[in-house]
Every structure is written in structure tokens, then in C-alpha cells.
């Protein structure tokens, strides 16, 4: 009898492990089926690698000016040509990717963090909800770029201030998403059951409501990442973003604007980079949402509300 019992137990755990690996296979299959998401993910990873290791590979300093080589077309020496100060465009774009991706990443992290805190607490405390949500309504009412410009004007141009300004702009969007999920989780019986067990509000909010909001938060964060990059480029293009002479894709475009008819490469290449980065992230985020949320069928996507650019 005893042996029989242990036998079935062994079988059970074996079945379980095969089931788990089966499930993993199904998941990989599901991911692989969404070709756009895979493509987006690969492009984005390549861009990240470029930002991390690219600066070690390029041979020119992005600030080094060779006035005699101004606006030379792409050639073997300068693969992507040079800009109006004779700086190598390739190394400027590679270093610029650090600025742009860095801003995008920091903004995504910071606004997720603050958005998470604001969203969770406003979902839990009703009075706080009214106050915080009216503030974020106010922030969301102003177009993102406009608000960012205003904040930059107040803070002064520097990369750090770009991050601060954009985090302020995007935090309400995260807060909204987190709050909406948290509001429905909070009414679940298991939250009441936790309360009946004597868990404190802090514990309930962070240990029991928060984990349930993470997957929509991550999806939203990928969109914020790409939005932040595009807004950073816009700010730099308008001259209130990453200050010269530090390169960012936006201010390379700004420099290129003046000489667009003489040196097409100065606008085309950074433009392509911005498109690649934003598109790859959006594809990835879209795929991620389809994967996480089974209600959204691929092919019949419900467009999430896009905020004003």
C-alpha cells in the first residue's frame, strides 16, 4: 500500500514536470507566431546593444570637429558622412542612441514607479483618489510636448531635466492604468479575505494588489518608453532637449534641418534610427499586450487611447 502510494506520487510529479515543459513550449510557440513582436524585440535588443557597446567600436569622438571635412557624403572613411561641423555622423548617432534610449528608459522606469505608487494609493483611498486623479486629469489635459516644453523652460536645458520633465508628463498615464486594474482587484474576495486575516493596508496594497497590476503596467511602460523617446527627439529638435554639443537623435536632426538640401544624410540616418526604435518598441508592446490579455484577438486589435503628441 505504501509503495503504491509513493509510486503514484512519483508519477504525479513527472506528469507535472512534463505538463510544465509542454506549457512552456506552447508559450514559445505563441510568441514565435507573432512575427511582428519578435521582429520588434530583436530590433530593439540590437539597438540596446548598439547603445551599450557601440561607443567602444566607433573610431571617432562625437565631439571631434574636423572643419575641413564638413558635410562630406557617406564614404569609406566616414560611413554615414559628417555634419556641418565636420563631426563623424556615425559616432554621433551611436553616442546619441545612449542619450535617447537612456532618456526613454529612465522615463519609463521613473514614471512607472511614481505611476504605480499614485495608482495604487488612489485606488485604495477614496479621498486621495479624488485629489490625485484631478491633478493627473489636469496634467493629461495639456498636450504632452507642450507640457514638456513648458517644464523644460522652467527647469533649464539638461539631460537630467529632460528626464524629469518627461516623467512628470507620462506618470499620469501609468497611474491611470494601474488605478483601473487595482480598483477591480481591490473588490475581489481575496483582498477582503486578507483583511479578515488581519493584514494591514500597506501589506494588502503592496503584497496583494500590486502583483496583479504588474502585467498591464509593463505593457504600458513599453509604450511610455517609445513615447518618451519620440518626445525627447521632438524636444531636442525644438532646441529645448538634450543641449548641444552632446549628441542625441533629436538635435542631430535639428542640425541637419538647416542643410537638408545639401546633406540629406544628416536628416535621413537619425530619422531612420528614431523610426526603428519607436516602431520596434511599439510592435513589441502590442505583441506583449496580445500575449498577456487574452481578450484582445490579434487581427482585431482594439486601439488603446493614444495620447496627444
Amino acid at each position, binding site marked *: 500500500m505504501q509503495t503504491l502510494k509513493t509510486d503514484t*506520487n512519483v508519477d504525479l510529479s513527472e506528469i507535472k514536470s512534463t505538463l510544465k515543459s509542454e506549457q512552456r513550449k506552447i508559450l514559445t510557440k505563441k510568441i514565435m507566431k507573432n512575427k511582428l513582436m519578435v521582429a520588434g524585440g530583436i530590433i530593439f535588443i540590437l539597438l540596446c546593444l548598439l547603445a551599450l557597446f557601440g561607443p567602444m567600436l566607433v573610431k571617432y569622438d562625437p565631439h571631434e570637429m574636423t572643419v575641413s571635412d564638413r558635410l562630406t557624403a557617406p564614404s569609406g572613411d566616414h560611413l554615414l558622412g559628417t555634419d556641418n561641423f565636420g563631426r563623424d555622423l556615425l559616432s554621433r548617432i551611436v553616442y546619441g542612441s545612449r542619450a535617447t534610449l537612456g532618456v526613454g528608459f529612465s522615463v519609463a522606469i521613473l514614471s512607472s514607479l511614481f505611476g504605480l505608487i499614485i495608482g495604487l494609493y488612489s485606488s485604495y483611498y477614496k479621498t486621495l483618489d479624488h485629489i490625485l486623479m484631478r491633478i493627473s486629469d489636469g496634467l493629461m489635459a495639456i498636450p504632452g510636448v507642450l507640457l514638456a516644453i513648458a517644464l523644460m523652460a522652467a527647469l533649464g536645458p539638461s539631460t537630467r531635466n529632460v528626464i524629469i520633465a518627461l516623467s512628470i508628463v507620462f506618470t499620469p498615464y501609468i497611474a491611470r492604468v494601474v488605478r483601473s486594474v487595482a480598483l477591480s482587484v481591490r473588490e475581489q474576495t481575496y483582498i477582503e479575505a486578507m483583511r479578515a486575516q488581519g493584514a494591514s*493596508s500597506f501589506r494588502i496594497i503592496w503584497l496583494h494588489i500590486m502583483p496583479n497590476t504588474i502585467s498591464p503596467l509593463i505593457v504600458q511602460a513599453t509604450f511610455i518608453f517609445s513615447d518618451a523617446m519620440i518626445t525627447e527627439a521632438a524636444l531636442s529638435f525644438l532646441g529645448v532637449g538634450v543641449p548641444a554639443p552632446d549628441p542625441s537623435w533629436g538635435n542631430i536632426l535639428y542640425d541637419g534641418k538647416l542643410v537638408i538640401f545639401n546633406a540629406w544624410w544628416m536628416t535621413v540616418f537619425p530619422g531612420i534610427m528614431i523610426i526603428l526604435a519607436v516602431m520596434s518598441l511599439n510592435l513589441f508592446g502590442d505583441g506583449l499586450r496580445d500575449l498577456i490579455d487574452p481578450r484582445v484577438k490579434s487581427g482585431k486589435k482594439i486601439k488603446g487611447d493614444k495620447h496627444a503628441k
Partner: protein
Amino acid sequence: MQNETLLEVSNLKTHFGSDTGFVTAVDGISFHVEEGEILGVVGESGCGKSVTAESILRLHDEKFNTMYEGEIKYKGENLLKLPLSKMENIRGNEISMIFQDPMSSLNPVYTIGNQITEALLLHQDISKKEAHNKAIELLELVGIPSPEKRITEYPHELSGGMQQRVMIAIGLACQPSLLIADEPTTALDVTIQAQILDIMLRLNKELKMGVIFITHDLGVVAEICDRVAVMYLGQIVEEARTIDLFEQPLHPYTSGLLESIPKMDGDRSKKLNVVKGSVPSLDSIPQGCRFASRCPFADELCLKEMPELRPFKDEEGSKVRCWHAEKILNERKKEHVSTD
């Protein structure tokens, strides 16, 4: 039996704020639970059973629109006057609660082991390892096979019956002196129901734990409860020992409920008795006896004045909220004699 009174609720009222003003969901309830006793609370849907249970633990505190009146004395302390931090110590540790729907009572993002150990760590000063071992013991106690394996599973990997057992394990984790079971078997099928009831009955005997058992299943009440309180529209209409209640229901509502249960040896050609009408909404409570609109014995007095919950003279420990309890009882006795 000389048991001490564990919980004494007197004249409890719970009001909820709504758009149209305050609604009184529980209106002046008094009852007590003794150590090691199982008190059944029965009644139709929406008559305030669950709200009573939740009021004992003050689970509506966070919603900011709830007002309590009266007294809930637990081991001599009035729970309604305690500060929240003290209340958190009592919840789960001294009084714990099992909810109606096991499927949604467990957090889907944690393993069941995590959730049981969390309940333990909240109130006891033990290491994670000890808590883990204790969780396995608890799972064994509630009859889950091979608990060391099950403990790493997520709620969705378990059946409803298993989940309810896990809930019971969590409820019992800190060995509370009082367990409130809010329709713990409603969502389960009959065989699982019987097992769960067995477990609860066993634990009640072994741990000498007081239980408030909320249900609308009179069969379950007959099986496990020592005493029963029948609720109607936020009030207790009858309270009696289980045997007395089933032998001799005093309130017309109780007898209505009892007559609506099919009997094994009943006459199959007859239709089952139904308590006519439905429970009135809480914001249109009639003046007078709340059951009057559905009561076959109601007269003018019933419509005008609300009867008090009064001790019934013939039966020890029985209380009834009806003007005509004696008359109805006598009539029924006569009927019995004539049919015999």
C-alpha cells in the same frame, strides 16, 4: 456544560451610506456564541447574514461609508471601540473568517503555500521554515492529499473543494477561538460539502473553537449546529436550540422555511410549500412586523407595531419575534391532533 461566552453581540446596527441616505442592513441584532459551540445563522439572500459576520470583524472600515451601533463584546472587549491596529491583531488571530466563494478567495498570483504561511507569519513569531512546515501540517489537517507537493501549487491548479479546504486551513492557521464561516459550502457539490462539514465539525470538537455558521441550507444546520438564529431583513426573528427549532418552529417565517424543504417520506403529489412574496428592499422597510406582508397569520397588530425579540416561555433558550407565536403553535397542535 459550563462554557464561557466567547462573543456577545448586543443590539448591533450596521448602516451603509448610499446615494439616497443611510440604509440599515443589520438592525438591532443580539446573540451570543459560547466556547466550542456552533451557532447557525440562516435566512434568505439579502437578509443581512453576511453583513453581520463582516461587522464582527469590521471589514467595512476601509469603505468609509459604514456606521456601527451597539456592542460586539469579544472576551469582554468591545470590538467596535478598538483602534484599527488592535483590530488587525484580532482578525485572523482570534477571530477568522471563511468566505463563500473559494474560487475568488485566494490570490491568483501566489502559491497556496505562500498564502498559508503569510497568514501564520502575520500573527506568529516563527521562522519561514517553521511556517512552511506548519502549512504542510495544516493542509494535512484539512485533508489535502500529498500536501508537500500541493503546497507549491497555484490556486487555479486546485479544484473548488480543494480551494475551500485551503481557505479553511488559512482560517485555522493561528488557531482562532472563533471561526466565522460565511456559507462555506454553498459553491461546492454535495459530496465535497459533506467532507468539508466533517472537517469543520472535527476541528470544532478537537480545538474547542466557537463557530458561527452562516448558511441558507437548513439541512446543513440540522447536521452540525448546536443553536440556530433565523434572520429576516436585518433582524433575528427566532433563536433556539437546533432540535427545538426543527421540532417546533415558533416564528411563521421559520416554519415557512422548514415546510419548503422536500421530505424523504413526503407526499409527492403535493406541491412544496413556498414562502410567498420576496424580501422587501432595505429602503422600503414596512412599519410593524417586517414579515407581516408575507405572513399568513398577520393581523392589524402585526402591521402596526413591531414585535420585540422575546424569550418564549415553553422552551428554554428560545426567543421569538412574533406577536402570535403561542396562538400559532396551539393551532398547529390542534391540526396535528385532527389529522392524526
